[in-house]
């Protein structure tokens, strides 16, 4: 049993209904953190580890809030209306809910994969921000879309090899959207609005000042920072952030299909949001 109070609720925001889950420490609230998860298949893989991280954070005096983006999970709306802007809007709304419930003004943002990119965009507009933790951030929407397509092709290839539907039959013409323009990524729709806004997302091109504490965690097979993450760190420093970049040796948990335990990542998140 978690040693914190957990409250699940819906909050009406401008005609939408956001699902939020709060993890409240038993003692005094010393900090507040908002968890920004990825979307689609990655969200499913990351979900439970982030619950674990939020509970761990609560044990260290940090009140955490998790939420479902509009059009996903228990929140209202259609996934076909999702764009990068709606993801950022939901994040800002959830941050405000967290402020009201915790009584803590400067919130910390924790983002994983695409959620990290969203957290970073939200941090530009959030006002009082105690810090941003980016876990294996998606640096560009184009790369994200490309990898999503690759993952789909690999899955179809394996399915075809096992006697299932053939690759050519199931994928159709490469990268050509079907009628209506909605791509199917492993059962999740990516409508033109989301696809176009993702294609325009490039963290390296952002220039707004961001004078906050930022930690970038790269999940890697070895304790080695990749060039792309180093570059992201440099870009953030140029924007005024106090940046720490590090690698954590762990499996790419956002791709895993089964139960995922990543205690080292959860500890790192809890430590950051608790201000360690």
């Amino acid at each position: 049993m978690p040693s914190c109070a957990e409250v699940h609720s819906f909050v009406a925001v401008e005609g939408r209904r956001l699902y939020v889950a709060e993890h409240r420490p038993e003692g005094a609230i010393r900090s507040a953190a908002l968890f920004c998860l990825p979307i689609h298949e990655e969200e499913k893989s990351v979900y439970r580890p982030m619950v674990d991280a939020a509970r761990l954070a609560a044990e260290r005096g940090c009140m955490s809030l998790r939420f479902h983006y509009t059009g996903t999970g228990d929140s209202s709306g259609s996934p076909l209306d999702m764009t990068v802007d709606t993801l950022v809007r939901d994040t800002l709304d959830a941050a405000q809910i967290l402020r009201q419930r915790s009584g803590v003004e400067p919130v910390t943002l924790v983002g994983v994969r695409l959620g990290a990119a969203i957290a970073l965009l939200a941090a530009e507009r959030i006002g009082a921000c105690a810090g941003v933790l980016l876990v294996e951030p998606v640096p560009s929407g184009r790369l994200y879309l490309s990898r999503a397509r690759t993952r789909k092709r690999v899955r179809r290839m394996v399915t075809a090899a096992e006697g299932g539907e053939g690759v050519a039959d199931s994928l159709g013409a490469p990268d050509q959207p079907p009628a209506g323009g909605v791509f199917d990524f492993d059962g999740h729709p990516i409508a033109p609005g989301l696809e176009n806004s993702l294609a325009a997302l490039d963290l390296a091109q952002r220039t707004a000042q961001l004078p906050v504490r930022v930690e970038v965690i790269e999940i890697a097979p070895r304790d080695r920072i990749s060039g792309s993450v180093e570059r992201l760190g440099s870009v953030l420093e140029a924007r005024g952030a106090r940046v720490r970049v590090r690698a954590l040796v762990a499996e790419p948990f956002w791709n895993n299909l089964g139960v995922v335990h990543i205690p080292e990542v959860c500890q790192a998140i809890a430590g950051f949001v608790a201000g360690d």
Partner: protein
Amino acid sequence: MATPDELIPPLKQLIVDKLFLKVDPAEMDADKPLMDTYGIDSVSLFEIVVGLEEEYGIVLADDEFDIELFRSVRSIAEFAASKLDS
């Protein structure tokens, strides 16, 4: 230009790293069936494809997603050598 034999050692290392295999890369048999020997699934194959892209800049064309390509370390090395040569 790298030959398949030259690519086999670094590819073994890449596969061990990417899939968190508890084996010594040097002990891997380049001709053994990868999927059966190491229990590789679609997630693992995806990691290998991403690894080829990150380490060698090799991007698979749509008609190259063929399971035979990933039959063994050697088959991957032969494919990688042909892509790097083109």
